[in-house]
Structure formats: structure tokens, C-alpha cells
């Protein structure tokens, strides 16, 4: 790509809906965030019109917080790690499309956090008081769990999923993979059934259409498709267990 002095950046904006083009001085080591910062310092469009600085979410700028996720040249990713030298021009910035738009490049990803509630994505510890060391774990197990645990709830996996749309309820790969994370923890396992129940029913794991876009889009390389496959198996087994337990409970006259 030819190195020119000016960068051409086109941003899909809201309030009101429009595209705006900006010409920005090219600086060494620039990324999409530093370009947005340049625009903040001089919010004037390519045709010389004053405008408002575009709104976007950002925080860590090193791809661990998930905030600055957006569509860059049609691909969903974090803006901080989108290096200008590796992008085709004009650079097109658009908000994520599978989440309610808030303004410009900022969207509302609350449904992802709600999904974590639905699947009870936590280890229910007894309390914060001193109960000594946690359970021993093999290194191999830790390494697998660590990868799953790097999910930053950025939403790339939902953005690329054909099963996710404003009219569908699919919970998405991120939350399903979190069930795998917690159900593989020696203590978390004790409540595996509760989490699997969270994956059953409407919008649950069976809504996955196996397009496998999620695993390619994940910036952290989380094995999302194998998480989905494993959780699909586990929910099936759980459904059978539920069926037989119900019979046991009836037979034994225990609590309903």
C-alpha cells in the first residue's frame, strides 16, 4: 500500500444517520484509535464542515477490555489493534450491527452481560473468609481454562453469527463457552447442572446453526466451536439426567 500523507477515513454516524469522511494526517504507528483521537482534536470533515467528534467506546487500547469493538472495513474487531499501515483506504468505520445502536460507533452490549447471569457464570464460593487454598489443578487443565477465561465479552462472536439478530434470542458463543469454563473448574463443577439448564430452552445452545464464524472472528483465539459442541453434548446428557432424576424423585417420594 502506498504511503501517503493523508489518510481517508469514512465513519458511519448517527443522530442523524449519515456517512462522514475525514482526511487525517498519517502518523507513524497509528491505529484506528489514534486516528479517532486526531479527529477529536480537529472535528472537521473532508469538505471542510465542522462536525461533532464521533462517539466511540474505548478503554485499555491493548485488546484486553473489549470496549472498542467495531466494524473496520467490514470486519468486526478491536479498533486499538487495527493498525493503519495494514488497512486498505478509505478506512470505513461502522458500529456493530447486532447490538442496539447508542450513537455513532457506540453500541449497547448489555445482553451479553445478561447472558452471563442466565448461565450463572461464576463459582459460587462460600464466602470471602479464610478457607485455605483452593483445589489442586493440573497445569494442562489450567491452560485450557485460561484460554476460555480470556473472553473479554467484546461481542465479535455474536456480530458474525447468522443466528443472532434483533428478532432471535440465541445466547451466542461467548456465554456458552463460559459454561464450559465454569463447569471445568473443580468447585464450579458442583453446579454444572444449573449452568447447563441456562443453556437449554429458547435461545440456548441448540439454536447454534454451526456456521462456525464465531471461532474465526474471536480475537483471543478461544476454541468457541469446540465449546459449543461440548456444551451441546453436555446439555443432552443433562436432559436425560433430569428425566431420570424426576422419576427417582417421584419413586422415592422425596422433595419435588
Amino acid at each position: 500500500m502506498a504511503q501517503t500523507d493523508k489518510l481517508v477515513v469514512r465513519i458511519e454516524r448517527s443522530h442523524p444517520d449519515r456517512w462522514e469522511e475525514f482526511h487525517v494526517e498519517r502518523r507513524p504507528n497509528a491505529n484506528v484509535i489514534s486516528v479517532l483521537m486526531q479527529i477529536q482534536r480537529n472535528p472537521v470533515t473532508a469538505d471542510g464542515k465542522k462536525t461533532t467528534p464521533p462517539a466511540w467506546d474505548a478503554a485499555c487500547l491493548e485488546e484486553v477490555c473489549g470496549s472498542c469493538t467495531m466494524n473496520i472495513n467490514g470486519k468486526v474487531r478491536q479498533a486499538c489493534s487495527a493498525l493503519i499501515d495494514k488497512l486498505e483506504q478509505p478506512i470505513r468505520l461502522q458500529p456493530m450491527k447486532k447490538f442496539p445502536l447508542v450513537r455513532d460507533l457506540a453500541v449497547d452490549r448489555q445482553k451479553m452481560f445478561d447472558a452471563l447471569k442466565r448461565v450463572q457464570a461464576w463459582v459460587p464460593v462460600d464466602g470471602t473468609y479464610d478457607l485455605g487454598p483452593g483445589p489442586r489443578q493440573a497445569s494442562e487443565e489450567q491452560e485450557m481454562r485460561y484460554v476460555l477465561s480470556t473472553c473479554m465479552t467484546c461481542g465479535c462472536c455474536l456480530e458474525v453469527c447468522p443466528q443472532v439478530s434483533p428478532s432471535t434470542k440465541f445466547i451466542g458463543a461467548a456465554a456458552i463457552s463460559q459454561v464450559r469454563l465454569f463447569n471445568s473448574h473443580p468447585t464450579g463443577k458442583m453446579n454444572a447442572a444449573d449452568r447447563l439448564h441456562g443453556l437449554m430452552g429458547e435461545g440456548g445452545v441448540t439454536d447454534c446453526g454451526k456456521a462456525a464464524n464465531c471461532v474465526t472472528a474471536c480475537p483471543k483465539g478461544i476454541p468457541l466451536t469446540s465449546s459449543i459442541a461440548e456444551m451441546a453434548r453436555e446439555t443432552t446428557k443433562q436432559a436425560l439426567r433430569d428425566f431420570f432424576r424426576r422419576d427417582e424423585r417421584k419413586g422415592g417420594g422425596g422433595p419435588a
Partner: protein
Amino acid sequence: MAERYIVVGGGLAGLMTVIKLAEAGKHVDVFSIVPVKRSHSVCAQGGINGAVNTKGEGDHPDIHVMDTLKGGDFLAEQPPVKGMCYAAPQIIYLLDRMGVPFNRTTEGLLDFRRFGGTLHHRTAFAGASTGQQLLYALDEQVRRYETEGLVRKFEYWEYLSFVRDEGGACRGIVAMNLRTMEIEAFPADAVCMATGGPGIVYGRSTNSTINTGSANGRSYMDGAIYANAEFVQVHPTAIPGEDKHRLMSESARGEGGRVWVPKEKGDKRSGKDIPEGERWYFLEERYPHYGNLVPRDVATREIFSVCRDMGMGIGGADQVYLDVSHIPAATLDRKLGGIMEIYEKFQGVDPRHEPMKIFPAVHYSMGGLWVDYEADSKGNLIPGSPRQQMTNIPGLYAAGECDYAYHGANRLGANSLLSCIYAGTIVGPAMISYAKNNAPKKGDVPSSLLDSSKAKWRERFEAIYKMDGSENPYVIGHEMGDLMIKSATVVKVNAQLDQALQQIEVFKDRWKKCNVLDTGRTVNQSAAYVNQLWNMLEIAHLILKASRLRDESRGSHYKPEFVLPKPTTKKPGDDPVFMAAWNARNEKWLKNSIGTWSESGPKVEFRDLSSLQNPILKPEPRHYD
């Protein structure tokens, strides 16, 4: 009305505070400018310290106390440090029980690695994204309490100020919804600030964009004491960037990484082509005992001087090598994977095979809101005392990087995650005791007080929306950052600080001519920024003022005009001339700077440390040779 508590900030300190309050059955409102899971704690990489002593090294919390106090050149009050170091092992165990995927030994125990300023393997870690993993664990526990109805989250809400009653006590906060721009007042029996550090005052740092220090700036303007503002840590190893400087964790050196420059000035070869014998490992040479793991202030000054004074930086530029390429790639992936990826992604070079190019960057504020403590005669904190972590404003607490309490003049690596979580564990119970015993009228905040506080802020923002001057606030912020980097980082010079103090006044004048850039009421980030910027200017002003007044060198605060002579003996204590100078310096300067706001500029006085009257550990000269 039932008791209510407010926590401002959803990083490690804030979330641990929430957990302690909710665990006691209390109702908590947590306010955060981002979803709490995206807080800056995610950026912490290397690990969390605790003298668990599983490596047969005879480590002990007392040694952790000593390393921490000495690392901070004895400028921290001692009982909170003791409390923290003694609680550290059980905090790590608690996090382990919560499911943090800490790295393991072959027996399946927690693994520990080395970090700066200690000779022990004391740092538990989860790859090289330990902060992220710890934050997620606390976030999960808080979400659990949220489903139980004990916690309400106010995400994308920004703290504007605390609500103060006629008696001077804090009775709640005023906050603004950053999505809808609505401003509301919220009552509370006690409020804890956990809003992190002010890195963005320096423009580019290792901090997240959200670390403006704005909340602290406002509390300081409203009467809270801000202590030790002049102590800002510059981390030795970061990748310089256009938007931010990305941290390359100290754990790289903890796992054996080495810092060097070519022996030959201006050597044109690429790092990996320079043979071992032609590399100058200046830290190892100058500090044979601690080597690459000297404390951060020491490493930063050495790198700075090698580049700036000697012109020995790579290619004559401001950069040195941080080299892990001699460590097997599989080990690097397992223990340092997170930072290997960051370097590769942002620099396009694989650090497993080529030495990384790094330079120091602003990283952490040791200073912050002054907080109290209460200890017995042996220096043990009294559990549940309402004084723990309370600012000088009754009912207003602070925890985490936004307090000043644990790190003195320089923070040791992997002590920040610990201090955040520890402060959270003690501030929760303190707030509960305060509400129980000391709150003026529990659960009953006069609505007139809330209404007037809210009205004041609505007026202020209406005024901001009308600002239509010629100055772009982001440009002022950018220039403020450049000024702060130039005048208040690794090497401080009084003449330069005097100039900077004048310049900050100019920025304050320019602020009044700001253009708000956007008058809308949906995600108006520039209006919020105009308000933040003023608060940042106040913090910057205080950092400069306190830096100007402290005429000595201690920890991160270094003035070449005021440096102690080098001891002539191996142990500094054996050199009477050095010890006389050292004692004289401490007599004058072993004091906390106490910053209070005034209309005409910051007022700074220097106050003795109360715990030094009966110290747990007598101050001694720092040396790491």
C-alpha cells in the same frame, strides 16, 4: 429507609468493596464509566504478590513488609502495609477458590514467579493477563450478588462530586449518565471512591483512556486531601505508541528477560545479530544482586540515563532491548503469552525470536486521596474500625490506586493488584461500622440536600453546553500531557517545574475559552470531557506543585540537584558521611505531602508519618547492588 452504600469505580478495589458489603447483606450501588468488566485492572499483567512460600525459600509476610516499605523508601504508613502483606496469602487463596486460572506447578499447586524489588518467588500469576483474570473473578461474584438483588450497577455513569451535608459529612454522590447525559443525586450512608489513577493527565501512558483522575480531582477540589501527588511511577518497559504506551510486564524480567544495549554506540545491526559478547547488560552489571529485577524507579532511571545521558540507546534513539528470546518459546507462551501477543500484534515482530524494543512510560500513581487507618500498639490494623481507608471527609472512603496508602515513594511490581483487593476487603467493613456508629442519620438523607446538589451540577453542565469559544478541549488535554511528560516524570528540575506551573495556569485560562464541540444530549463525550479536563488540570497542577516543593530524591521522585552522595562502603550503613547526609535528608523529607485545594492554586504541606513514632521497621537506606 434501609442502609445504602455507594462504590464509585468497578475495578479490583471497587468490586472487592462491593463484595464485602454485599456479603454482609448490604445494598450497594456501584457506579462506573464503563461496564465494570472493562475497568483498567484488566491491564495488569504480571501477577499478585503474597509470601506463600511454596518454593522452599523461607519467604514470610515480614519479608514482604520489608521489601514493600524499602521499595517505597519508607514513605508509606507501616500498619496498612503490614496488614496487606499478612493478608496476601489468603487473598490469593480466595481468588483461587473463585476460579482464577493461576499457573500451576507440576503438583498442581499455585506457581509463583519473581518480580522486582525482592529476591523471592512471591508472585502468583495467570499467564500475563493476571489483572484481567482477577477482575473477571470479582466481576463474576458481583454479578451473582446482582442477581440476588443486593447490587445495582450504574454503568456508563460518571461521578461528578460527593454530596456534603452541613456538618461536612459525605451523604451520597451526584453522577451523570454518559449515554443520556442526565444528572442525578444518589443518597448513601457511606461512599467509597475506587476510581484508579490519573495516567491520562500525562497524555500517553500505560493507562486506559478512562484513567483521567477526574473523580479524584473533583474530590480534592471539594475538600478531600490528596497526598504524595509528586510520586508517579514511570515503568521501565513499555512499547511507545501513538495512542498509548503499551506495558511490557516486569514478569518478562521475572521469567529471565534481560535488558541490554549494543556495546558499540550506534550499532546498526539488528538485535538478534549482535553476539552475546557485544551486548551491554547494564542492569546486571550495575546491580549484581538484583540484576534486571531492581525496583522500577531504579531500572527506569538507568534506562533513561543510558539513552539520554550516554546516547547508548538503540540507534541513538530512546529505546533499549528487553530480551526474552533465549527462553524456550513454549515457556514464553505458557507464562507470558499475553504480552508476547501484544508485542507481536502491535509491533509486528515476534519477541520469542527477536529482542523487544522498549522505553519507560508513565504507569502508576503512588499518591492519591489521603486515607486514615487505626492500628494497635503492635502496628496491627483494628478490624472493622470505621477509620480504615476513610478520607478526611467523614463518610467518604477511598481504595485502590486512587488512595495514597500502600506504596510510599515507589510501588513494587505485583503489589498493586494486592493493594487494590486488600483495601477493598478492609474498606467494606469500615463503611458498615461507620454507618452503624457514626452516620449522622442512618438511611435518611434530606431530599433538599440531594436536590440542591443535583441542581448545582445541572447548572454547571448547562454552562458547559454553552461553551462556544475557540479552544478545542482535546488539544488542551494533549498539550497538558506533553507538558507533564516533559516536566514531571523521570528527572525533575526545579527551573522546568517553575515554568510548568506557569504553563498550567495558561491552560486553565484556555480552558475557559473551550468550545464544547457538541451540544447534543446523547453520548456527548466532549461535554463530559470538558468537565473531566478541568479536574485533570487541577491534579496536574498539584503534581507539579508538590514536585516543585519536594527538594530531595526519593523513589520515583528524582531531582539531580538533590541527590545523596554514593556510599563509599559496601553497606551504606558503614559509611558515616553517607549516613549523616541520609539522616539529615530524612529529618527534613521523610514526610507525606498533603495537598489541599484552594481557589488560587494547590496548597502543599509536609507532614510526619504517624507510624514512624513507633515503627514496625526502622527506615534504612535502600540499596540493591
